[in-house]
């Protein structure tokens, strides 16, 4: 390990969490579910509502449906939450970029390390609206849409299909290879009590028979839209040591910034890889960690090909090798790297980085129950595409 550049390493920690059930539709409004979940997270951390003086989230609603969004209904901002908790914060901030949960954790970490806040709630609230998630009845395409919608190119699955086709053709990857990813995520998700897919694993045959959305992306290569909330409480390492649960420390982070031109979301495989490698360099430089130091590298899997892209960006595989790595058991529970041990997005539902962060927290705090790994001292929680999303590194000790 080299010396970390991140001087706040080990000075900020996660002290507790809560998770709502993940379901296609919730019985209560999203805002109410968020308030209830955040109060449980605060209690889990051994704190009271009045001690929370910082709030942040990244409230993006990741649909191409063009709906008018209502705070508390489709999204829940930090400001909305503050109002409904009748809190008196010293610090409230929203993350506007891509990789919303790492982004919010980074803001919270910097607020705590700088003294802007003591105890921060980081939440992520996801909503599944009635009707097709990405269906958009637009008649006129203006702004960035004028370059895509008139061509019939619309929605993230089509966006994902282009670089995935490129990957498969360039490196000879097959859908049989990807079955190892999706089956692993669903097997692990089936064991998570709050998962939408609890008790519902799938076989490789189920995956290969799945309905196509935009070849080679099938419905089972996409995480399923859900309603659910995850919440975490962050505080200083010093204060965390007096709280009930074993702290999990923020060891550093990195964020991508390679946005496609003029907001037109067309990804090229080379950009994803080169941008991802740049993010990984920032991460190792910032944290002082190396790939082999990480016991729980939770890669993002909102679309299955992201698993390949993160594995290759982080250096667990060479370029174009991830499909063989997963096919040969490289990520299988008990035999390979635990990159989807928390079920990920494919095994829980579209929770946008919550499963990855939660699995790092549960493993490193020794709260993972039956799936507790024997060695879990460093973890990575990734979200979105490696070239434009984010990743936070966690450790079970403040240094080393």
């Amino acid at each position: 390990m080299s010396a970390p550049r991140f001087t706040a390493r080990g000075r900020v920690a996660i002290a507790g969490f809560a998770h709502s059930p993940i379901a296609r539709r919730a019985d209560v409004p999203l805002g109410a579910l968020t308030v209830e979940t955040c109060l449980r997270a605060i209690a889990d951390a051994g704190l009271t509502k009045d001690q929370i003086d910082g709030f942040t989230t990244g409230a993006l609603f990741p649909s191409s449906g063009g709906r008018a969004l209502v705070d508390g209904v489709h999204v829940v901002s930090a400001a909305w939450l503050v109002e409904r908790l009748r809190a008196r914060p010293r610090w409230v901030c929203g993350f506007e970029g891509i990789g919303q949960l790492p982004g919010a954790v980074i803001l919270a970490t910097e607020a705590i390390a700088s003294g802007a806040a003591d105890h921060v709630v980081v939440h992520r609230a996801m909503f599944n609206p009635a009707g097709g998630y990405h269906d958009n009845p637009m008649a006129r395409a203006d702004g960035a849409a004028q370059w895509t919608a008139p061509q019939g190119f619309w929605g993230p699955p089509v966006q994902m299909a282009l670089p995935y086709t490129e990957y498969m053709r360039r490196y000879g990857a097959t859908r049989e290879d990807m079955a190892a990813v999706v089956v692993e995520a669903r097997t692990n998700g089936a064991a998570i009590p709050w998962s939408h897919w609890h008790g519902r694993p799938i076989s490789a045959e189920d995956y290969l028979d799945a309905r196509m959305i935009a070849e080679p992306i099938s419905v089972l290569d996409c995480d399923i839209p859900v309603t659910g909330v995850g919440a975490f409480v962050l505080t200083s390492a010093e204060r965390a040591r007096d709280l009930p649960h074993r702290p999990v420390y923020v060891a550093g982070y990195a964020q991508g910034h390679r946005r496609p031109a003029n907001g037109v979301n067309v990804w090229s495989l080379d950009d994803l890889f080169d941008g991802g490698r740049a993010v990984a360099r920032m991460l190792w430089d910032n944290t002082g960690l190396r790939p082999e130091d990480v016991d729980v590298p939770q890669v993002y899997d909102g679309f299955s090909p992201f698993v390949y892209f993160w594995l290759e960006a982080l250096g667990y595989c060479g370029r174009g090798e991830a499909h063989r790595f997963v096919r040969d058991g490289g990520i299988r529970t008990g035999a390979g790297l635990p990159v989807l041990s928390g079920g990920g997005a494919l095994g829980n539902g579209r929770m946008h980085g919550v499963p990855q962060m939660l699995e790092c927290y549960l493993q490193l705090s020794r709260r993972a129950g039956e799936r507790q790994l024997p060695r879990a001292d460093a973890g990575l929680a990734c979200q979105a595409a490696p070239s434009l999303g984010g990743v936070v590194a966690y450790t079970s000790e403040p240094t080393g």
Partner: protein
Amino acid sequence: MATKPIPVPDPLSEGFWSAAASHVLAIQRCADCGWYAYPPTVMCGNCLSPEPSFQFQPVSGRGRVTTWTVVHQAFLPGFAAEVPYVVAEVELEEQEGLRMVTRLGGARPGDVAIGLAVEVAFDDVAAGVAVPHFVPAERRA
């Protein structure tokens, strides 16, 4: 029946759509260094000219497929009757990396491949509005 989205020009894109209406593919080009930009931009991505000067210049309309997908579920209702259809990314021959996302007409999904030679065609979608797309190039002797 649902219609396909009609492009709405703006100050940055007006030169592209007015040329397209006459069935001409014109791409924004930096007057200082000759770099093509698509979609149109406000600052040259190549020479970073502090006083950018752009013009829309007709191009050959020829290129090659760099990647593609076959859409089976259309999120835009105007395209629902056409599934499965092919959407490709095409690199124009004028400049490496000059790529457009386009409907690929006149090609069966099984015939598409990376490197397929294509050429521009136009759909008249409304009065005075035409959308360029690409089709497999004519085989020339």
